[in-house]
Structure formats: structure tokens, C-alpha cells
């Protein structure tokens, strides 16, 4: 099953990469600053959170005194959450948005979520490389341990992609899914230790946080970039299994409903 899908993706790689490029170009076509906006948006968000939490509310990270610590902590969680959110949010509308194309052209539909994911990765790569440059300038690069972020990223991408495709397929049949995902993402964001650390939470809340699959991922990034700590793999494994499971469910659902989807668009 996944073999035919992989083969279809490979055969249409030209179309997928071309679409990513075109979408990127089209997004900033009529803007003066172009791709700068990709950077400005998270930058604005980070500035707001830093000012509000670090300066005004005097949020401090326990055990660290660097002036940049909170910003780095924030970036580590926020930028990766941004990737997760973008894949999920665009994934859930990918089939609806491309309904016109789906109805008129015959091509493997799996290309569409692939384009969405790659697009999100491109945006993420831009902002994240700026983050890395910032780390280098402030001499806060954690060293080779940074490579540990790659497997974490992989798990996160798989998790987001699985969820995104499931939401995308369901959204064609039940538009409620799209509305629900948007609300869910808001709660999820604040329920994940991104702008605060779990250490600052009351003890009663902590076990609940562990139920959130995004918690160990965010903590792993923060560990790597703020403390230079190896991720706690024992907390990552369950998320990886969950992500793989979601991807399988997503592919099954997609296979089962791809034909019917055209009828509903």
C-alpha cells in the first residue's frame, strides 16, 4: 500500500517540488518585502512573549541566569510548534483548497499533503536557521548535541503529518473538523510548556502535562537549546509510536476515502 504511494510521490516529484516553489513565490508575489515576512511573523511573536513574560512578568527559568535564556527557551518551543501548527492547519484544508484541481486533473492525491508538509518545512528551515544564527552570535550554540534535535523533529513531523491528513480527509466530509482543529490548536498551545516551563507549574498539574504528546517534544528542544541536555528518550518513544500509528491510520483513511472525496468536493 505505502509502496504504491511512495512510488507515486517519486514519480510526481517534479510536480511536488515545482508546486512548493510556485506556492512560495506566489505567497509573496505582490509584497515588497517578500520572504522577509516568513521571518517577521515568528519574530514579532517572540518579541511579544519575551517582553510580556521575561520583562514585564519577570518570568525566570529556574537555574539559569543568561539574559537570552528565556528567549532561547521560547524560540526552541515556539518555532517547532509553528511547524507542527502549520502542517496541521494547512493539512486539514489541503483537499478543500485544491478541490478545483482534484476535480479536473488525474494525479496521485497524496501529492497534495506532501506539498503542504514540504512547504511548512521550507518556512521552518528559514526561521530556524535564523534562530541558529542568533545562537551563534550570542555564543549560545549548544554544540554537537544539537543533532539530537533531528530525530525529535522527525517524530514531530510524522505526528503532525498523520494528524493533518486525518483532519484533511475528515474535513472534506465533516466541515466541523476544520473548526474543531482551530480551537483545539489554541488550547493545545497553552497546554504545552512553550512559553512557560513545567517547573513553574503547581505539582498537581504536572502529571496531566505528561499526557500531552507535545510536552516531551517541546521539553526535548528546550533541553537541547537552553541546557545542552540530551533528550530523555524514554519520554520520546511513546510519542514516536503514536506518530507512526497516526500515519498508518492516516494512510488507511486516505486510501479508503480518496475516491469518495472527489464526490464531496
Amino acid at each position, binding site marked *: 500500500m505505502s509502496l504504491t504511494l511512495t512510488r507515486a510521490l517519486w514519480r*510526481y516529484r*517534479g*510536480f511536488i517540488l*515545482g*508546486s512548493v516553489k*510556485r506556492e512560495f*513565490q*506566489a505567497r509573496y*508575489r505582490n509584497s515588497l518585502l517578500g520572504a522577509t515576512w516568513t521571518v517577521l511573523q515568528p519574530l514579532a511573536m517572540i518579541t511579544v512573549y519575551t517582553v510580556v513574560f521575561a520583562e514585564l512578568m519577570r518570568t525566570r527559568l529556574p537555574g539559569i541566569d543568561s539574559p537570552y535564556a528565556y528567549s532561547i527557551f521560547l524560540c526552541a518551543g515556539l518555532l517547532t510548534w509553528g511547524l507542527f501548527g502549520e502542517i496541521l492547519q494547512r493539512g486539514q484544508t489541503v483537499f478543500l483548497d485544491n478541490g*478545483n*484541481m*482534484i*476535480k*479536473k*486533473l*488525474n*494525479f496521485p492525491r497524496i501529492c497534495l499533503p506532501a506539498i503542504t508538509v514540504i512547504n511548512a518545512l521550507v518556512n521552518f528551515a528559514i526561521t530556524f536557521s535564523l534562530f541558529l544564527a542568533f545562537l551563534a552570535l550570542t555564543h549560545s550554540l549548544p554544540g554537537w548535541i544539537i543533532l539530537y534535535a533531528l530525530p525529535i523533529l522527525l517524530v514531530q513531523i510524522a505526528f503532525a503529518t498523520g494528524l493533518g491528513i486525518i483532519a484533511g480527509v475528515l474535513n472534506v*466530509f*465533516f466541515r*466541523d473538523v476544520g473548526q474543531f482543529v482551530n480551537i483545539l490548536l489554541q488550547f493545545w498551545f497553552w497546554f504545552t510548556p512553550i512559553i512557560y516551563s513545567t517547573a513553574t507549574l503547581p505539582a498537581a498539574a504536572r502529571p496531566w502535562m505528561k499526557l500531552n504528546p507535545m510536552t516531551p517534544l517541546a521539553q526535548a528542544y528546550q533541553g537541547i537549546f537552553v541546557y545542552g541536555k540530551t533528550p530523555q528518550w524514554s519520554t520520546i518513544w511513546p510519542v514516536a509510536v503514536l506518530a507512526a500509528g497516526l500515519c498508518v491510520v492516516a494512510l488507511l483513511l486516505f486510501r479508503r476515502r*480518496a*475516491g*469518495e472525496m*472527489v*464526490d464531496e468536493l
Partner: protein
Amino acid sequence: MGEVRVSGLGKAYKQYPGQWSRLAEWILPAGKPRHTEHWVLKDIDFHLRAGEAVGIVGANGAGKSTLLKMLAGTVRPSCGEITIGGRVAAMLELGMGFHPDFTGRQNAVMGGQLLGLSLEEIARLMPQIEAFAEIGEYIDQPVRTYSSGMQMRLAFSVATAQRPDILIVDEALSVGDSYFQHKSFERIREFRREGTTLLLVSHDRYAIQTVCDRAILMEAGRIRMQGDPIEVLDYYNAMMAEHNHQRIRQETLADGHVTTISGTAEASIVEVRLLNQRDLPADTVEVGELLRLQVRVRANAALPRLVLGFLLKDRLGQAIYGINTHRLEQPLEHLAPGDEVTYCFSFPARLGKGSYSVSLSLSRADSHIDKNFEWRDNALIFHVFNTGKEDFVGSSWLGANVTITRHP
């Protein structure tokens, strides 16, 4: 290559009474199906030989577009089988799924990639695509700024940049202006000569008759009839005028032509004769010869008003001349059942060489759509020869004179 085989094809859309019942059907494991199936297409069987051109006609909602979509692979059949040998290029409705924010060029590249072309091939074909679409500098503008005609031109250029084994065109060409229509049909004919199989949906009688070898008439999701385009289109035309109490039948005449007869039968044509000046049946006619069309009509019911019309059509089914007694200001009024009348139209056959058909209509008013007593396509056929006049081209003889003045 280029063969298309369709057997037992059908398409049903699922209809749910509401979203909750769809959810129930999805998640309740042992639940019974809660949807009703709405069949838009059923029991479709046909076979296209490689290189054949087939036109599909039918009223709106007959299932033509759904059929093409399934052949093009965008809609999945509910049952039946489609076997397609070769590369398919499809133009389903407008725009080929263009992305409005991308430029024409980007869309052309994307379309080419989806047709399975590599970037190098597209780059090689691009000048040709641009030249054929004739949209000039617009090629680098976003597609949302295009007119529908421009979108169609670009879509057609991309879809046909490389000769496909099977070309599927759904109405799309009707959007273009007549110049582009001619150009596109020229390209389609060229492909046909090189062996492309063509499947065309069109309401344009001329397009189907001139391009297609065969026509398929669809009605309410089934194939009603298939065969020679002119016969099928005559039948379709009769079907369109169909009202209550109407029957359609087709008869094969002695000379092998098929005549299509439809109507309420409140009046009927008893006999049709085309006579020349010596009162002999005119199968063959000289250019300019005086002809008389004699039609004997019987009223089968009390008719307040009766109009007889005739229409001459050329070999391709194009109307050459038509007139009726309403327009000649001689309608008959108050006929009793059993009354018989003989009409005699006389006219000179100022026609070009070739064969012509005569269609007749008995109706209450000017148009047979209003009340169609009898409509008879191909009521008779005659051939025009030119032995007496100068040799000319075209379907009518205008008898031009020439005076030439030399300027010293």
C-alpha cells in the same frame, strides 16, 4: 495504443439524510448503510477503437460529464471497468484546474508536469504552447486576471502540447471565440490523422458531425443510442422537441438512408415527392433546375392551425435553406380529422454539387418546439450535379458575372 473499453460502468453518489447519519455510518461498526444511492450513470458499455473519434450528446444531466470524468480518472466509478490504452489528456470544463494566483507560465509548467512531462520537455514545448495560446504578455500574469477564453486557450495549448493517445474534451472549446475554435479543431483533426482517439462532448452539432465518426446519445445516465453522428443527432433533435404523447421512430428508406420521425401524430405526412420540370422524381438535379416539393398531409385530429415547413441540409447536416407556410403567410386553419392537403413548394435548385437532405415539419406555429405534430429528418435525399454551369465551389450558385477593365 489508444483503445478505450468500457464495460458495465456505473456511478452512484451517496446521499445521506444528514451529517449525523453519515457519522453514524462511519463509526458504528455493525450499522446498516444509512445512505441512499443516487445513480447518475448506469450500464455503460462501449468500445473505442484506436484513432476513432466519438461525440457524446445528450441533455444537461444525462451523465456526459460524469462519464468523461471517470475516463479521465478524476471520478472513481462505483461499478464496472474502464480499460484505457495509452496516455490520456483531458480537458474537463474550464481551466484545467489552474491555480488562480500562479502565472500562466507556472500553471502551464504545473499542468505539463501533471501530464507526466519532464521539466526539460516542458521547456522545449513552452514556445509552442505560448504561440498556440496567443495570450501574449499575459503568460506571466496570474491566471485570475485571465478571461475565460484566455484560460481555455492556455489549457488547450498545454493539454495538447504533446499528442496524447486519447484526447478527452468536455464542452471546453465552446468558450473560445470562433477563430480559436477553428484553430483547436484543426489541431484535433491533425491529431486524429496521427492516430489519436478522440472523445468529445459538445452541444455544437457541426463540431460533432464534422469531427466524429460515431456519436453516442445519453439519456438519464444510460446510453440511449449510438451510431452514425447524423442519425444520432437527428434522433437527439427529435428527442429535444419531445413532449407528451410523442413517439420517435427511425425508418430506413429504400436508398439506405435513415429517416427520423417524431411528433404527436395529430397530423402526419403521407407522401413526399421531389419533382423536376418533367414531373419525374428528382434524385439527381442539375444546378439551377426548377424543382417542386410535393407533400401530402393528413390531419388525424381537429387542428386549429397547421404549418408545414421544409429544410434543406447539406451532407454535413448544415442548414442551407428552410421556410414554412407560416412565414410564407399561408397557414391552414380549422382542419377536421381525416382532412388531406397537398402542398407544393417550387424553387430553383441554385445549389452546389453534392447531396442534400430534406427535413419536414408539421406544427401549429413557426417553431416545432411549440407543438410538434410531426418532424421528419432525412425525409428524402437528392444529389446535385453540375454539367450546365461553370464549375464553382460552395453550396450555393449565385451566378456571378464579371467585367474586367484593364488600366493602361
